[in-house]
């Protein structure tokens, strides 16, 4: 299996990256573990959503919608499981499934290697993630919540700022040809 290959569409050509074995699983576990530790040890970092950043990164990198949505679903359901009995299974799962699918779909069409593109996409996916979460809460859980506010705007910015170096770090898990 090739480590890297190209999608050719017209004049553009976009690389589809492969990762070391266990890289995706390891990154996911680390992200979920850290996310589970934040509320206890670093409450101020509760604003971060590391599983979301991992979902976005691997979605953009793998550029396969099916893989992206399944990865998003898996990460989301794991996050649901770790979030305690007050969060029903599927709340994060649905949101991250959508984000994984969208990230993979966009990654297959655009070059998402540039830091500015990664920043912008992270903000956009954070907002999408939040929108799906609120929609799910309102429609299924009958829990009205704000669509967006300053806190969430700040969280989107912080996650995007963190995402740029994090994505560079995760780039190191790619297998080079």
């Amino acid at each position, binding site marked *: 299996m090739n480590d890297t290959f190209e999608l050719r569409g017209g004049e553009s050509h976009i690389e589809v990256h492969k990762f070391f074995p266990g890289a995706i699983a390891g990154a996911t576990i680390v992200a979920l573990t850290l996310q589970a530790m934040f509320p206890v040890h670093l409450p101020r970092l509760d604003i971060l959503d590391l599983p979301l950043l991992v979902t976005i990164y691997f979605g953009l990198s793998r550029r396969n919608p*099916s893989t992206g949505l399944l990865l998003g679903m898996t990460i989301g359901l794991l996050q649901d499981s770790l979030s305690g009995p007050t969060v029903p*299974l599927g709340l994060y799962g*649905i949101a991250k499934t959508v984000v994984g699918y969208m990230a993979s779909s966009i990654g297959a069409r655009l070059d998402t290697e540039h830091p500015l593109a990664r920043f912008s996409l992270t903000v956009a996916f954070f907002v999408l993630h939040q929108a799906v979460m609120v929609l799910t809460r309102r429609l299924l859980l009958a829990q009205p919540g704000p669509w967006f506010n300053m806190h969430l705007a700040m969280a989107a910015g912080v996650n995007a700022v963190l995402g740029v170096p994090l994505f560079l770090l995760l780039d190191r898990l790619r297998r080079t040809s």
Partner: protein
Amino acid sequence: MVAIPSRHRSLALLAGVLLVQIMMLAVQIKRDSRGRLIRVWAVSAVTPFERSGAWGFGRVRGVWHHYFALQSTVRENEALRIENDSLKLAISELQSKAAEADRLGLLLHFKANNEKTAMVGARVIGASAGTASRTIEIDRGERDGIHRNQPVITPDGAVGKVIEVYRDSAQVLLLTDKDSGVGAMLVDSRIQSPVGGTGELMLTMKYVAAEDTVNVGEKIVTSGMDKIFPRDVPVGTVMEVRPGTPFKQVRVMPAAKLDRLEEVFVLLTQEPLEFQNGAETPSAAAAPSAPAGASTTAPVVSPAAVKP
């Protein structure tokens, strides 16, 4: 199997995955008093079909019962008709008995109020066969102390007088008979004049001078001058006054309900009687309107006031 184009495969997978998670959420979520969301959804999804089914079954059942399964309806109708007839009869009998009880109660009350006056209660057992005379037959006769020319009354007023007496029955000439007459006077003006029958329901006051004033609605009582009736027994109420020469034509509605007599009293003496005010008031159901020139100062008599 339906083949899904490869470009739509991921979209179908997304839809499937989302659906599975939504169902998973629905299984977990419990909506307050309405139970789990999956149950709410299931019920909401099935209810319209259940409702449609129930409506359809109801229609089919209705058509069956109303158009096809009518074998026993004729028999049932016949039985119900017979039962209905017997119930009507029973109701009629009960109503008749209730009315009789009311009448007897009234008679008893009247007799209790006039216990010093000797009188005999009698039941009307017959009436004149033709229209030429207005008489009734009562079930009291010589053996009960009944004699000719004794006055007959009801708690409402004067009825007539005994004209024939037999061993166990007697014949009473009603005030409405053409040959009947009773000494009477107007209560307000104290004008005295005999009141006689006309052969119809209304009476007439025969000799009221043209210059005398008679008001419609004025009460008429017996004067006692005929030596038959005691004084002050209600005779009737003036319903119509027409000018005439030398006498006015005064039409009077009888105080007693002479067309529906069932029980009466035969007075054995001429002791004065005590009548209730309400009992003096005649029925005004058939009261004609006062003609021009007649006084209408008296109030119209209410039919309800006739009832004792």
